């Protein structure tokens, strides 16, 4: 079947088998290996991407279901020109919000819509927002710090 989808602003058309998962389509067909595959049953959150701006598990969707929709992956966060990072990515780097980095793309893609809807969350809200993403390094402490860091950086005009 033919799939027409916009990923990180670029339009792609590909012939796909219906059983191809969106996560595998992104990684194998488009080479966007920033989307990680962990558990393939929706628990770990590593494969989280944005579907029309909202966070979803790419392992729990068939690629063909994204037909005529818009997908954003972690590769789409930073501006494509130059080497600046997305403010959230910058905050993760500064606050040491990652260890091995496997869960990081999913964590970032979960947090982008969360921070859009809740620009100034307290720690409890941040932890709840992260409850659908597993970090096997158990580095949650600094992930939470990084999120607060991103909020503060955002609200301070001279940064």
């Amino acid at each position, binding site marked *: *079947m033919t799939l027409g989808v916009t990923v990180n602003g670029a339009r792609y058309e590909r012939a796909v*088998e*219906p*059983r191809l*998962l969106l996560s*595998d389509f992104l990684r194998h067909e488009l080479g966007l290996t920033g989307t990680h595959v962990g558990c*393939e*049953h*929706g628990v770990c*959150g590593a494969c*989280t991407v944005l*579907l029309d701006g*909202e*966070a*979803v*598990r790419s*392992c*729990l*969707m*068939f690629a*063909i*279901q994204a037909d005529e929709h818009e997908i954003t992956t972690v590769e789409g966060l930073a501006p494509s020109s130059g080497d600046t990072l997305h403010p959230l990515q910058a905050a993760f780097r500064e606050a040491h919000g990652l260890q091995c980095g496997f869960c990081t793309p999913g964590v970032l893609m*979960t947090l982008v819509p*969360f921070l859009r809807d809740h620009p100034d969350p307290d720690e409890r809200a941040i932890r*709840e*927002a992260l*409850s*659908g993403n597993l970090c096997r390094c158990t580095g949650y402490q600094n992930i939470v710090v990084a999120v607060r860091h991103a909020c503060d950086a955002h609200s301070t005009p001279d940064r």
Partner: protein
Amino acid sequence: MKPAAFEYFAPATVDQALALLAAHGGEAKPLAGGQSLIPAMNFRLARPRALVDLNRIAELSYIRSAKGGTTIGAMTRQRAVEQSDVVTRGAPLLAEAMPAIAHPQIRNRGTIGGSLAHADPSAELPAVMLALDAAFRARSVTGERTIPASEFFKGMLETALAPDELLVEIGLRPMPDRSGTAFLEVARRHGDYALVGIAVVVTLDGQGRCKAARIALLSVGDGPVLAVEAGKTLTGQVPSAEMVRAAADAAATRDVDPPSDIHASAAYRRRLVAVLTRRALGRAFERAGATQRGRS
């Protein structure tokens, strides 16, 4: 861990979907949010010959309020139900339960109809619907019927739906005056399936006596369990701490026979039933009283 091959259809109308299901005679499965079906396919626990994807059927996604109550289309996303003012006003019990289902990323795809058709005994929505005495509208090529929640859930992952039948709408009647509701659950982590959960609807009469109490428990059996004995102890009584404790006791000892599994022993589940019933009833009666005061 990849799904077996299947034929894929993405109809645009309910009629087309029903025709496809009928044509495949039980070999095709409807695909709603995919948050339960796709994990099962990824592990090849499910290998349907064909999938009838309901996601392009716009007519199945709506939340409406009318004199007769609130109606919700089966393909309405759980996230949309959670964020709906109509639901908050018309079915506060449902609104209270929504955030307990999984995580936002799952609720962005998962649908209200999918959760009910899946009928997981640990799921929140079947118990909520049983407490609310909801009516489910189902359609097939041969016609349409309405199934009360009390006849819909048949056991572990089993419902009254035929293989070629679609759940199309959930109907919730308006809350009677002097009613109060409450939802509570205990899970190991926010978003996990609950060890025990409870949904309660109580209604008081003009004298402040309990006219009706519908108490539904989840994760204590093969499906949602209506705590009939607990309800009986309350009917006709003026709610008090003692009455609530007696009802909680009846729920834990007479209404449920909970399973033991790796997450919790039967004895612990019973204990949770007693505690949660007491807390939920307390909260629901308080809210019913608050409604009463607000009106007089």
